[in-house]
């Protein structure tokens, strides 16, 4: 009898160790490249840990923390007051931790003659006030605007940072992720879109200056680039267990080096 109990306990311990799964949901900006890379490195050091990563937009990450369906919610935007209110109603304490900085880069097809735009021109293009490239110094042709979809943090951040909170042009095409925007702009000589810094080295596109400045480590850190922003892990209060360890790893020198390598601007 005693032997059976010992075996059962041993089995449960092994099963428990093997079931260390960290669920992370949210931002495509963080979740398409950075977090999977961090997760791979982390798994190499902690073989018993597995990850479930769903990168479907910041809104889904914040909702997952409120609903308790993820340990970490990735977000490229701050939680809205209504989300914080919904969290409070469920006894959830939304805690943001800055894990890296990003600059929202304006990209066009590599064949575009343009090198840069002003903030005003960018607002006009994305709101639909301007619909032809000739109005902003480009070759005549209808502008094709590519944006993220409404569950994206970048979608709402860009409205706040670049569009004075105005609506996107009705003709704008909404894409599920940064990589889709890059792919469309690379195919379309009249295309324009925005992506996180980590997605600017793809072929077929080029990054435009904004009021003469490019997004890079220095301009983002110094907050001189107008569309610079922090990116977050949201947790329910102080994280614990594997989530705390993964957050610690993300903020470690090693984690921040990975962030920089992937294309983000490290916090230090």
């Amino acid at each position, binding site marked *: 009898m005693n032997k059976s109990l010992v075996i059962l306990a041993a089995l449960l311990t092994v099963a428990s160790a093997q079931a260390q799964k960290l669920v992370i949901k949210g931002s495509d900006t963080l979740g398409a490249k950075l977090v999977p890379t961090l997760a791979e490195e982390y798994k190499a050091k902690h073989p018993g840990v597995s990850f479930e990563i769903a990168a479907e937009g910041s809104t889904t990450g914040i909702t997952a923390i409120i609903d308790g369906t993820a340990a970490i919610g990735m977000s490229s935007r*701050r*939680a809205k*007051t*209504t989300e*914080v*209110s919904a*969290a*409070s109603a469920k006894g959830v*304490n*939304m*805690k*943001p*931790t*800055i894990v890296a900085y990003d600059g929202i880069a304006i990209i066009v097809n590599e064949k575009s003659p343009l090198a840069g735009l002003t903030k005003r021109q960018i607002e006009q293009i994305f709101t639909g006030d301007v619909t032809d490239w000739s109005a902003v110094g480009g070759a005549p042709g209808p502008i094709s605007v590519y944006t993220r979809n409404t569950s994206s943090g970048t979608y709402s951040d860009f*409205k706040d940072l670049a569009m004075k*909170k*105005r*609506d996107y042009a009705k003709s704008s095409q909404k894409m599920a992720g940064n990589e889709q925007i890059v792919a469309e702009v690379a195919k379309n000589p009249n295309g324009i879109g925005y992506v996180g810094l980590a997605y600017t080295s793809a072929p077929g596109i080029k990054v435009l200056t904004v009021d003469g400045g490019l997004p890079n480590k220095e301009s983002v850190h110094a907050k001189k680039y107008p569309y610079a922003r*922090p990116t*977050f892990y949201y947790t329910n209060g102080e994280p614990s267990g594997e989530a705390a360890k993964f957050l610690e790893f993300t903020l470690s020198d090693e984690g921040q080096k990975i962030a920089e390598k992937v294309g983000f601007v490290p*916090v230090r």
Partner: protein
Amino acid sequence: MAHTSFKWLALLGGLVAGTAAFAQDSGPLIDALVKKGILNDQEAEEIRSDLQKDFAETSAGKLNISSNLKELKFYGDARVRYENRSGENGVAAVGAPNTTGLPGDLQERNRFRYRFRFGATGKLADGWFFGTRLETASGNRSTNVTTGNYANAPFGKNADNTIYVGQIYIGRTVEDFTFTAGRFANPLVTTPMVWDDDINVEGLAEQWSHTEGNVTWMANLGQFTYEGSGGTNNFGATAGKDWTYLLAFQGGAKVKTSSTTSLQVLPTYYYYTNTKKVNGFTALTTPNSATLRPEGLSVVDLPVEFGFKLGSLPAKVWVDYAINLDAQDRAAAAGKPTFDGEDTAWQVGFGVGQTKAKGDWEAKVFYQSVDAFALDSNLVDSDLFDSRTNMKGYGVSFSYVISTGVTAKFTYASADRKEDSLATYGSGDIGTPNLTNYQLFQADLSVKF
């Protein structure tokens, strides 16, 4: 530096400890602290998050208002009223026999009434705006519910207790122009002699106002659907129904004649289309109706107002003069072709005071004379002379602001039939077409928010 940092942190501490609503405005302060190196980004983020949590606990924090809105405003009022209204059944006019009693009979109505109105207006980008107002009662010239007037008394409810959509409109402001469509407050400058101020018109309005020096030029145009029941071109052999429209053209100016005086003149022309239609209206040969056909109406109205100071109080004298250019057609439609000279209406009044703050008061007095065929009886004020034309008399009112937003108002009006050979056209609460010796007393207590 340490001293300065302490000051900043003390200020931030005050914000955190202060009201949540105030804390919502602290974003720029936090950014400034980060720029000065007093806080790092993560510390700033945690403070922001704490402030947001505090705000989220408040009522305002639980509201989720569309980001399309630049401004949203709620407003409304509630009013309780005692009213005594009485009128004598006068000598029968030719063609309008007394059917409700003998001459000299007095009808009296004592009523306790209440009303409620609640509205919202919003502004969006590029000058777009919208508004709506919900209100009690179904009448076009009243939002009152009469207490006890229920089939299932005591304390029942009737149709007037229902909440109706009194206003719903969208519009756009472009520089000096304002365009409005829907159902909205009357955009014309007018007096109760011509328009009851409870009426919300339906249709389109275009307004222009431009100030140059001491002169404000104004133009108000309206295209209102006056009656439009039923289809316009039904299947089968049924005759099509044409809608009736009221078109209004108003233009003029307000001139500041000195630092304390002003003169406003706004001539207006009213034109009706399809006035002989049968549907939805009662012929003028049945004068005691609230929906008389707008036949033979082509009215020029001239409201003039002179504003000045009486001591420290604002005061005004006004005159409103109107003439119906088609009165002969209206008289003929009423079966009274020899009374085609009954075409003029005028009102003269004086008011002093204002009702803005606690302790303010305002007094008004006017005299009015309206010929039988001068104005549209479907639009004239429903209280002062019981919705009638062919009446002359006076009215006085006194308002006192008991507390900010709380006003007591007392109104008295007295009138007689102007031309005894004619009916008093229109229908109010006193059920005779030969109304005379009419008196009204109202005591109101209103709360505005």
